[in-house]
């Protein structure tokens, strides 16, 4: 089933970590296999923030293979070595969990393709997000468990999207959890509710164009598809509109960039979405109770229609 939620504050910042946690926790009945956050925090914009993992959460319910922590240490050492070779300087380093790390990096080049390819050439290493504002945090468990584990409730920013996952077509692991980073674009993330039926055809097509897939989760295709469209020169909104015919199946998905948040709904309108829109806040989720967690007062909400694409700026 899965649940998605997102919000964007226009003209101000707020405690988006805590707000999104409340929204996703309200949707936990739609799936508790894993929960993911894509948070756009307030930063000075000078350094890149790289969230990456050197292993999987192999706790209860995980479909991953158990590895020794020493393997994670080895992988981290190679990452550090590769960063030196890429002329990327680690400004701040945080090892949140044995398998999950957060680096602030000074890196001058704009093209992240070469950078990402080199780092991810290390077996078992995956960049969860790369950007000057974006931080993707995803792990097994419900929204509160992940929020507590990573200390997200204090994060202040402008917008955020998140996902509560019920695994149906791929494993219960971090690599299959949402949100997906719009590799190799800085600050692009995607969450999705639905099923894509032309996943393999599109995947083969995009892999031939040099795009990478880290999981076998059909939702990852949306992130790669949009990224490829942007790589070809399309705007975010143009890429999303193209996806309505390029992707087959049922879907409602959100895409966020450094300064915007968008939603798209397939032409069958088979997946739910409730939307609240005002001058200073847009909040949306698979169910109204998600919005109610941040706006308990009586508000006007509506369901976007089939084939609808909307994008909001901060």
């Amino acid at each position, binding site marked *: 089933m899965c649940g998605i939620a997102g919000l964007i504050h226009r003209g101000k910042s707020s405690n988006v970590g805590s707000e999104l946690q409340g929204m996703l926790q309200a949707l936990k009945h739609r799936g508790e296999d894993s929960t993911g956050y894509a948070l756009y925090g307030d930063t000075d914009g000078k350094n890149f923030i790289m969230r990456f993992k050197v292993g999987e959460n192999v706790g209860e319910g995980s479909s991953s293979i158990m590895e020794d922590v020493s393997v994670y240490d080895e992988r981290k050492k190679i990452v550090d070595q590769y960063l030196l070779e890429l002329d990327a300087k680690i400004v701040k380093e945080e090892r949140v969990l044995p398998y999950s790390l957060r680096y602030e990096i000074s890196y001058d080049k704009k093209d992240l393709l070469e950078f990402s390819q080199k780092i991810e050439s290390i077996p078992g290493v995956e960049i969860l997000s790369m950007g000057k504002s974006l931080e993707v945090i995803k792990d097994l468990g419900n929204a509160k468990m992940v929020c507590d584990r990573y200390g997200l409730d204090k994060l202040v920013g402008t917008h955020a999207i998140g996902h509560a996952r019920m695994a149906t077509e791929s494993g219960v692991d971090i690599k299959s959890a949402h949100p997906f980073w719009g590799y190799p674009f800085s600050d692009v993330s995607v969450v999705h509710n639905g099923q894509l039926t032309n996943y393999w055809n599109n995947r083969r097509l995009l892999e031939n164009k040099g795009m990478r897939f880290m999981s076998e989760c059909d939702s990852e295709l949306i992130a790669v598809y949009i990224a490829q469209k942007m790589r070809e020169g399309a705007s975010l909104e143009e890429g999303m509109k193209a996806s309505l015919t390029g992707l087959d199946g049922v879907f409602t998905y959100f895409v966020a960039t450094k300064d915007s948040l968008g939603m798209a709904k397939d032409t*069958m309108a088979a997946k*739910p979405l409730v939307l609240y829109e005002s001058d200073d806040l847009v909040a949306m989720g698979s*169910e109204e*109770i998600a919005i109610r967690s941040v706006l308990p007062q009586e508000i*006007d909400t*509506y*369901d976007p229609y*089939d084939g609808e694409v909307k994008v909001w700026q901060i």
Partner: protein
Amino acid sequence: MANLKATEKKTKSQSMGMHSEVLTGRTQQKFFNPDEGENLYYFGTYDVDFNKRTELDVKEMTAPEANKEIDNLMSQGFGTIVIKNPQGKHSLGVGILNKLNLIFEGSLGYFGMGSCDGPTVRINGRVGWSCAENLMAGKVVIEKNAGSCFGAAIRGGDLICKGSVGARTGIDMKGGTIIVGGDAGAFTGFMMQRGRIIILGDVGINLGDSMYDGTIFIGGKIGSFGSDAVPSDLTDSDQDWLKRKLKVAEIGEKFDVSKMTKIVAGKKLWNYDNLEPHEKKGAI
């Protein structure tokens, strides 16, 4: 097996697109016998007084707790119940088989007012997916918007949304009337079998797709017609009925019904019962 046969002479209701066939052969139709009335007991019904009014704050309640409390209040004879702080909770007000004035001061989540038979309900907010699913009788009025599958499989009653509704409005409906003041999404009237849908605004693609019978009236633009949905002539009877219905529904009273588009089933998809199983596969 019941067979369908077109009637030669059309009644007024038939001219409006209703009951244009009669059932012959083996049928599951049953008729109410007044002599057996005393043996019929409708479980879960109470004698209520509409002038006896109370309020119920469900902010801290789960949906089952709230629904049980509504039942408890009806058992005490309360005929008018005002629900405070529904806050988008799912499945509120389901399974009410009673005459009752029920007022929600706020919005409902999914499956609100499902499987009801008899109450008059006003929701001063929005409703989520599948509002009033399987409604048998009564009247449900939504002051704001509604989600998808609005009035799915209703058998009777009036379901009114003053705002706009999502996709698949009236899917599989078997009777009753759905009235929408705003727009409706794709697949409105999908597989409907009886009843009538009135949309004053625009509708999305595949209107009336695979509809078996029933009538749809559209005031605005139509995205596209679905399979076997065809336009039909709007008669004087239709216009009279539309005016009366919109007035009763407190919606679009000044709307020019003469410009509405009437949609009925083309009935090309009928006669499945006359096909052998292997022929059905080909037809589908």
